Protein backbone atom coordinates (compact mmCIF):
# COMPACT_ATOMS: atom_id res chain seq x y z
CA UNK A 1 0.00 0.00 0.00
CA UNK A 2 2.86 2.33 0.83
CA UNK A 3 4.34 1.75 -2.63
CA UNK A 4 1.04 2.56 -4.25
CA UNK A 5 0.70 5.64 -2.09
CA UNK A 6 4.28 6.75 -2.78
CA UNK A 7 3.73 6.40 -6.52
CA UNK A 8 0.72 8.71 -6.40
CA UNK A 9 2.60 11.18 -4.24
CA UNK A 10 5.66 11.05 -6.50
CA UNK A 11 3.59 11.47 -9.65
CA UNK A 12 1.88 14.58 -8.44
CA UNK A 13 4.32 15.98 -6.03
CA UNK A 14 6.74 18.61 -7.06
CA UNK A 15 6.58 22.23 -6.47
CA UNK A 16 3.06 22.16 -7.76
CA UNK A 17 1.49 25.26 -6.32
CA UNK A 18 -1.61 25.08 -8.48
CA UNK A 19 -5.06 24.49 -6.96
CA UNK A 20 -5.05 20.92 -8.32
CA UNK A 21 -1.63 20.28 -6.81
CA UNK A 22 -2.81 21.49 -3.41
CA UNK A 23 -5.92 19.30 -3.53
CA UNK A 24 -3.86 16.24 -4.43
CA UNK A 25 -1.41 17.04 -1.68
CA UNK A 26 -4.28 17.34 0.78
CA UNK A 27 -5.66 13.89 -0.06
CA UNK A 28 -2.29 12.21 -0.70
CA UNK A 29 0.17 13.78 1.74
CA UNK A 30 3.74 12.58 1.95
CA UNK A 31 4.03 9.92 4.62
CA UNK A 32 6.67 11.70 6.61
CA UNK A 33 7.17 11.98 10.35
CA UNK A 34 5.29 15.27 10.45
CA UNK A 35 2.22 13.67 8.91
CA UNK A 36 2.12 10.85 11.49
CA UNK A 37 2.71 13.35 14.27
CA UNK A 38 -0.29 15.39 13.11
CA UNK A 39 -2.39 12.21 12.89
CA UNK A 40 -1.36 11.22 16.41
CA UNK A 41 -2.24 14.64 17.79
CA UNK A 42 -5.63 14.67 15.98
CA UNK A 43 -6.42 11.17 17.31
CA UNK A 44 -5.43 12.08 20.88
CA UNK A 45 -7.40 15.33 20.83
CA UNK A 46 -10.48 13.59 19.35
CA UNK A 47 -10.28 10.89 21.99
CA UNK A 48 -10.07 13.50 24.72
CA UNK A 49 -12.82 15.74 23.35
CA UNK A 50 -15.35 13.07 22.39
CA UNK A 51 -14.43 10.56 25.10
CA UNK A 52 -14.28 12.87 28.09
CA UNK A 53 -16.01 16.18 27.36
CA UNK A 54 -18.53 15.80 24.54
CA UNK A 55 -19.97 12.32 24.29
CA UNK A 56 -21.82 11.78 20.97
CA UNK A 57 -25.39 10.44 21.41
CA UNK A 58 -27.89 9.16 18.88
CA UNK A 59 -31.49 9.63 20.00
CA UNK A 60 -33.45 6.41 19.69
CA UNK A 61 -37.04 6.88 20.80
CA UNK A 62 -39.89 9.35 20.86
CA UNK A 63 -40.11 10.04 24.59
CA UNK A 64 -38.71 13.59 24.29
CA UNK A 65 -40.75 14.67 21.28
CA UNK A 66 -41.31 17.37 20.13
CA UNK A 67 -38.24 18.83 21.89
CA UNK A 68 -36.00 16.09 20.49
CA UNK A 69 -36.99 14.03 17.46
CA UNK A 70 -36.34 10.34 17.10
CA UNK A 71 -33.04 9.46 15.31
CA UNK A 72 -31.55 12.85 16.13
CA UNK A 73 -27.94 13.44 17.08
CA UNK A 74 -26.60 15.41 19.99
CA UNK A 75 -23.57 15.57 22.25
CA UNK A 76 -23.52 15.22 26.00
CA UNK A 77 -21.79 18.07 27.83
CA UNK A 78 -20.24 16.03 30.60
CA UNK A 79 -18.94 19.02 32.49
CA UNK A 80 -22.45 20.45 33.03
CA UNK A 81 -22.73 19.30 36.63
CA UNK A 82 -19.10 19.28 37.68
CA UNK A 83 -19.58 22.53 39.57
CA UNK A 84 -23.35 22.85 39.87
CA UNK A 85 -26.37 20.79 40.82
CA UNK A 86 -29.25 19.76 38.54
CA UNK A 87 -32.32 21.96 38.64
CA UNK A 88 -35.99 21.54 37.78
CA UNK A 89 -36.60 21.88 34.06
CA UNK A 90 -33.08 20.78 33.04
CA UNK A 91 -32.87 18.29 30.20
CA UNK A 92 -30.33 15.67 31.21
CA UNK A 93 -28.61 12.60 29.84
CA UNK A 94 -28.77 9.70 32.28
CA UNK A 95 -26.58 6.62 32.41
CA UNK A 96 -29.26 3.93 32.36
CA UNK A 97 -27.35 0.76 31.52
CA UNK A 98 -24.13 -0.27 29.79
CA UNK A 99 -24.00 1.81 26.58
CA UNK A 100 -27.62 2.97 27.07
CA UNK A 101 -28.43 6.52 28.11
CA UNK A 102 -31.78 8.22 28.64
CA UNK A 103 -32.64 11.75 27.58
CA UNK A 104 -35.20 13.17 30.04
CA UNK A 105 -36.30 16.35 31.76
CA UNK A 106 -35.96 16.84 35.52
CA UNK A 107 -39.37 17.77 36.94
CA UNK A 108 -38.72 17.34 40.66
CA UNK A 109 -35.82 17.27 43.10
CA UNK A 110 -35.29 15.44 46.38
CA UNK A 111 -38.05 16.01 48.91
CA UNK A 112 -40.59 17.09 46.28
CA UNK A 113 -43.91 15.31 45.87
CA UNK A 114 -44.75 14.29 42.31
CA UNK A 115 -48.22 13.54 41.03
CA UNK A 116 -50.00 13.28 37.69
CA UNK A 117 -53.71 14.06 37.53
CA UNK A 118 -55.44 13.62 34.16
CA UNK A 119 -52.17 14.39 32.40
CA UNK A 120 -51.35 17.44 34.52
CA UNK A 121 -48.11 17.42 36.49
CA UNK A 122 -48.36 18.53 40.11
CA UNK A 123 -45.27 19.20 42.18
CA UNK A 124 -45.87 19.56 45.91
CA UNK A 125 -49.58 19.72 45.11
CA UNK A 126 -49.23 22.70 42.72
CA UNK A 127 -49.90 22.54 39.00
CA UNK A 128 -46.76 23.00 36.91
CA UNK A 129 -46.81 25.00 33.70
CA UNK A 130 -45.07 22.91 31.05
CA UNK A 131 -44.94 24.75 27.71
CA UNK A 132 -42.67 22.04 26.26
CA UNK A 133 -45.41 19.39 26.55
CA UNK A 134 -47.43 19.66 23.34
CA UNK A 135 -49.27 16.35 23.14
CA UNK A 136 -52.40 15.48 25.11
CA UNK A 137 -51.99 13.16 28.06
CA UNK A 138 -54.28 11.32 30.42
CA UNK A 139 -51.67 10.12 32.89
CA UNK A 140 -52.67 9.47 36.46
CA UNK A 141 -50.09 8.74 39.11
CA UNK A 142 -50.56 8.86 42.85
CA UNK A 143 -48.37 11.31 44.81
CA UNK A 144 -44.90 10.09 45.71
CA UNK A 145 -41.94 11.79 47.38
CA UNK A 146 -38.54 11.94 45.74
CA UNK A 147 -35.95 10.30 48.00
CA UNK A 148 -32.70 11.97 49.07
CA UNK A 149 -29.96 11.83 46.45
CA UNK A 150 -32.54 11.34 43.70
CA UNK A 151 -34.45 13.41 41.20
CA UNK A 152 -37.60 12.74 39.18
CA UNK A 153 -37.29 12.66 35.39
CA UNK A 154 -39.97 12.50 32.71
CA UNK A 155 -39.94 12.78 28.92
CA UNK A 156 -41.79 15.60 27.14
CA UNK A 157 -43.93 13.22 25.09
CA UNK A 158 -46.77 12.34 27.45
CA UNK A 159 -48.96 10.98 24.64
CA UNK A 160 -47.24 7.63 25.13
CA UNK A 161 -48.98 5.22 27.45
CA UNK A 162 -47.85 5.66 31.06
CA UNK A 163 -46.64 2.05 31.17
CA UNK A 164 -44.59 2.39 27.97
CA UNK A 165 -42.88 5.62 28.92
CA UNK A 166 -39.70 5.19 30.99
CA UNK A 167 -39.79 7.83 33.72
CA UNK A 168 -39.44 8.16 37.47
CA UNK A 169 -37.00 8.54 40.29
CA UNK A 170 -33.34 8.14 39.54
CA UNK A 171 -30.11 8.61 41.48
CA UNK A 172 -28.40 11.96 40.87
CA UNK A 173 -25.07 10.20 40.40
CA UNK A 174 -26.46 8.65 37.21
CA UNK A 175 -26.78 12.01 35.50
CA UNK A 176 -24.00 12.19 32.94
CA UNK A 177 -24.57 15.70 31.63
CA UNK A 178 -26.73 17.96 29.50
CA UNK A 179 -27.28 17.78 25.75
CA UNK A 180 -25.24 20.34 23.81
CA UNK A 181 -28.19 21.37 21.60
Amino acid at each position, binding site marked *: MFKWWSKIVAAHRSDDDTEQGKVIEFFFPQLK*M*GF*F*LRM*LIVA*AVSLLVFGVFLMPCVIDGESMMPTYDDHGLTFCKRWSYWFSRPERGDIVII*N*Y*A*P*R*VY*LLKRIVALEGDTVEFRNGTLLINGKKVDEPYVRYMSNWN*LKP*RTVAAGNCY*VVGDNRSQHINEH*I*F*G*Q*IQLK*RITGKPLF
Partner: protein
Amino acid sequence: MKKTTAKKIVVLLLLAVFAATATGAWFYFRDRDKRLLRELVTELEDMSAKRQGRSNALALLDAATPERVFAKEVEIISDHPAMKRTMKVKELGQLMLAMKKSCTSTQLDISIDTITVNGESATVSGNALFSGSSSRGGSFREARNLELECAKNAGKWKIVRIKAYSIIRK
Protein backbone atom coordinates in the same frame (compact mmCIF):
# COMPACT_ATOMS: atom_id res chain seq x y z
CA MET B 1 9.19 22.14 12.50
CA LYS B 2 12.68 20.62 12.55
CA LYS B 3 13.00 16.90 12.03
CA THR B 4 14.77 16.34 15.32
CA THR B 5 12.13 18.26 17.28
CA ALA B 6 9.35 16.24 15.62
CA LYS B 7 11.15 13.02 16.47
CA LYS B 8 11.55 14.09 20.08
CA ILE B 9 7.84 14.91 20.33
CA VAL B 10 6.85 11.55 18.83
CA VAL B 11 9.15 9.69 21.22
CA LEU B 12 7.77 11.68 24.16
CA LEU B 13 4.17 10.99 23.09
CA LEU B 14 4.89 7.29 22.69
CA LEU B 15 6.54 7.22 26.11
CA ALA B 16 3.51 8.96 27.62
CA VAL B 17 1.14 6.43 25.99
CA PHE B 18 3.33 3.56 27.20
CA ALA B 19 3.44 4.95 30.74
CA ALA B 20 -0.35 5.43 30.81
CA THR B 21 -0.94 1.88 29.51
CA ALA B 22 1.50 0.42 32.02
CA THR B 23 -0.09 2.34 34.91
CA GLY B 24 -3.57 1.27 33.81
CA ALA B 25 -2.50 -2.36 33.49
CA TRP B 26 -0.83 -2.24 36.88
CA PHE B 27 -4.00 -0.89 38.53
CA TYR B 28 -6.07 -3.47 36.68
CA PHE B 29 -3.97 -6.53 37.46
CA ARG B 30 -2.44 -5.67 40.84
CA ASP B 31 -5.32 -7.15 42.77
CA ARG B 32 -5.74 -10.82 41.92
CA ASP B 33 -9.13 -11.10 43.61
CA LYS B 34 -10.56 -8.17 41.69
CA ARG B 35 -9.27 -9.65 38.44
CA LEU B 36 -10.86 -13.01 39.28
CA LEU B 37 -14.15 -11.29 40.11
CA ARG B 38 -14.09 -9.42 36.80
CA GLU B 39 -13.50 -12.75 35.05
CA LEU B 40 -16.44 -14.23 36.97
CA VAL B 41 -18.70 -11.44 35.71
CA THR B 42 -17.47 -12.02 32.14
CA GLU B 43 -18.21 -15.72 32.53
CA LEU B 44 -21.73 -14.89 33.74
CA GLU B 45 -22.22 -12.67 30.67
CA ASP B 46 -21.01 -15.46 28.36
CA MET B 47 -23.20 -18.02 30.09
CA SER B 48 -26.30 -15.87 29.70
CA ALA B 49 -25.70 -14.98 26.07
CA LYS B 50 -27.23 -16.68 23.10
CA ARG B 51 -25.96 -15.31 19.84
CA GLN B 52 -28.29 -14.97 16.86
CA GLY B 53 -28.00 -18.05 14.66
CA ARG B 54 -26.26 -20.16 17.31
CA SER B 55 -27.99 -23.52 17.51
CA ASN B 56 -30.15 -24.25 20.51
CA ALA B 57 -27.97 -27.21 21.49
CA LEU B 58 -24.76 -25.14 21.61
CA ALA B 59 -26.44 -22.24 23.37
CA LEU B 60 -27.86 -24.58 25.97
CA LEU B 61 -24.47 -26.17 26.47
CA ASP B 62 -23.09 -22.73 27.43
CA ALA B 63 -25.54 -22.56 30.31
CA ALA B 64 -25.31 -26.21 31.26
CA THR B 65 -22.72 -25.77 33.97
CA PRO B 66 -23.96 -22.90 36.16
CA GLU B 67 -21.83 -24.14 39.06
CA ARG B 68 -18.84 -22.51 37.31
CA VAL B 69 -20.29 -19.18 38.40
CA PHE B 70 -22.84 -19.80 41.14
CA ALA B 71 -22.57 -21.30 44.62
CA LYS B 72 -24.69 -24.33 45.56
CA GLU B 73 -27.47 -22.03 46.73
CA VAL B 74 -28.11 -18.58 45.38
CA GLU B 75 -30.34 -16.01 47.00
CA ILE B 76 -32.10 -13.69 44.58
CA ILE B 77 -33.35 -10.38 45.89
CA SER B 78 -35.29 -8.14 43.58
CA ASP B 79 -37.97 -5.45 43.70
CA HIS B 80 -40.09 -7.88 41.70
CA PRO B 81 -41.81 -9.95 44.42
CA ALA B 82 -41.94 -13.11 42.28
CA MET B 83 -38.16 -13.14 41.96
CA LYS B 84 -37.40 -12.94 45.69
CA ARG B 85 -36.26 -16.43 46.57
CA THR B 86 -33.40 -18.82 47.17
CA MET B 87 -32.56 -21.20 44.37
CA LYS B 88 -30.42 -24.28 44.11
CA VAL B 89 -27.74 -24.00 41.44
CA LYS B 90 -29.39 -26.72 39.33
CA GLU B 91 -32.71 -24.91 39.50
CA LEU B 92 -31.01 -21.72 38.38
CA GLY B 93 -29.37 -23.59 35.50
CA GLN B 94 -32.74 -24.95 34.41
CA LEU B 95 -34.21 -21.45 34.53
CA MET B 96 -31.41 -20.20 32.30
CA LEU B 97 -31.93 -23.08 29.89
CA ALA B 98 -35.67 -22.41 29.72
CA MET B 99 -35.02 -18.73 29.07
CA LYS B 100 -32.59 -19.53 26.26
CA LYS B 101 -35.02 -21.97 24.71
CA SER B 102 -37.70 -19.31 24.53
CA CYS B 103 -35.42 -16.73 22.92
CA THR B 104 -33.67 -16.53 19.56
CA SER B 105 -30.98 -14.31 21.05
CA THR B 106 -30.03 -13.02 24.48
CA GLN B 107 -27.29 -10.77 25.71
CA LEU B 108 -26.24 -9.72 29.20
CA ASP B 109 -24.03 -6.66 29.56
CA ILE B 110 -22.70 -5.83 33.00
CA SER B 111 -20.77 -2.65 33.68
CA ILE B 112 -18.93 -2.79 36.98
CA ASP B 113 -18.85 0.33 39.13
CA THR B 114 -17.12 -0.99 42.24
CA ILE B 115 -15.62 -4.20 43.57
CA THR B 116 -15.24 -4.48 47.32
CA VAL B 117 -13.22 -7.40 48.63
CA ASN B 118 -13.41 -8.24 52.30
CA GLY B 119 -11.41 -11.37 53.02
CA GLU B 120 -13.33 -14.35 51.70
CA SER B 121 -16.35 -12.34 50.60
CA ALA B 122 -16.79 -9.67 47.96
CA THR B 123 -19.43 -7.42 46.44
CA VAL B 124 -19.52 -6.43 42.79
CA SER B 125 -21.80 -3.46 42.11
CA GLY B 126 -22.84 -2.07 38.78
CA ASN B 127 -25.50 -2.00 36.10
CA ALA B 128 -26.85 -4.84 34.01
CA LEU B 129 -28.65 -4.72 30.71
CA PHE B 130 -30.39 -7.90 29.61
CA SER B 131 -31.58 -7.70 26.03
CA GLY B 132 -32.64 -10.07 23.29
CA SER B 133 -35.43 -11.26 21.09
CA SER B 134 -38.12 -13.74 21.86
CA SER B 135 -38.87 -16.80 19.67
CA ARG B 136 -42.44 -15.52 19.37
CA GLY B 137 -41.17 -12.24 17.94
CA GLY B 138 -40.54 -8.96 19.64
CA SER B 139 -37.53 -7.81 21.55
CA PHE B 140 -36.87 -6.94 25.18
CA ARG B 141 -34.41 -4.73 27.02
CA GLU B 142 -34.29 -4.68 30.82
CA ALA B 143 -31.85 -2.63 32.84
CA ARG B 144 -31.20 -3.12 36.55
CA ASN B 145 -28.96 -1.93 39.34
CA LEU B 146 -26.98 -5.04 40.11
CA GLU B 147 -25.14 -6.21 43.19
CA LEU B 148 -23.44 -9.59 43.17
CA GLU B 149 -22.33 -10.91 46.53
CA CYS B 150 -19.61 -13.49 46.12
CA ALA B 151 -17.83 -15.93 48.39
CA LYS B 152 -14.44 -17.53 47.93
CA ASN B 153 -14.27 -21.28 48.24
CA ALA B 154 -11.09 -23.26 47.56
CA GLY B 155 -9.58 -20.25 45.79
CA LYS B 156 -12.56 -19.77 43.49
CA TRP B 157 -15.12 -17.00 43.64
CA LYS B 158 -18.79 -17.96 43.34
CA ILE B 159 -21.94 -15.83 43.37
CA VAL B 160 -24.04 -16.43 46.49
CA ARG B 161 -26.51 -13.55 46.31
CA ILE B 162 -27.90 -11.49 43.44
CA LYS B 163 -29.59 -8.18 44.18
CA ALA B 164 -31.30 -6.58 41.21
CA TYR B 165 -33.28 -3.38 41.53
CA SER B 166 -34.96 -1.07 39.04
CA ILE B 167 -32.78 1.85 38.02
CA ILE B 168 -35.74 4.13 37.54
CA ARG B 169 -38.82 3.88 39.79
CA LYS B 170 -42.14 5.47 38.87
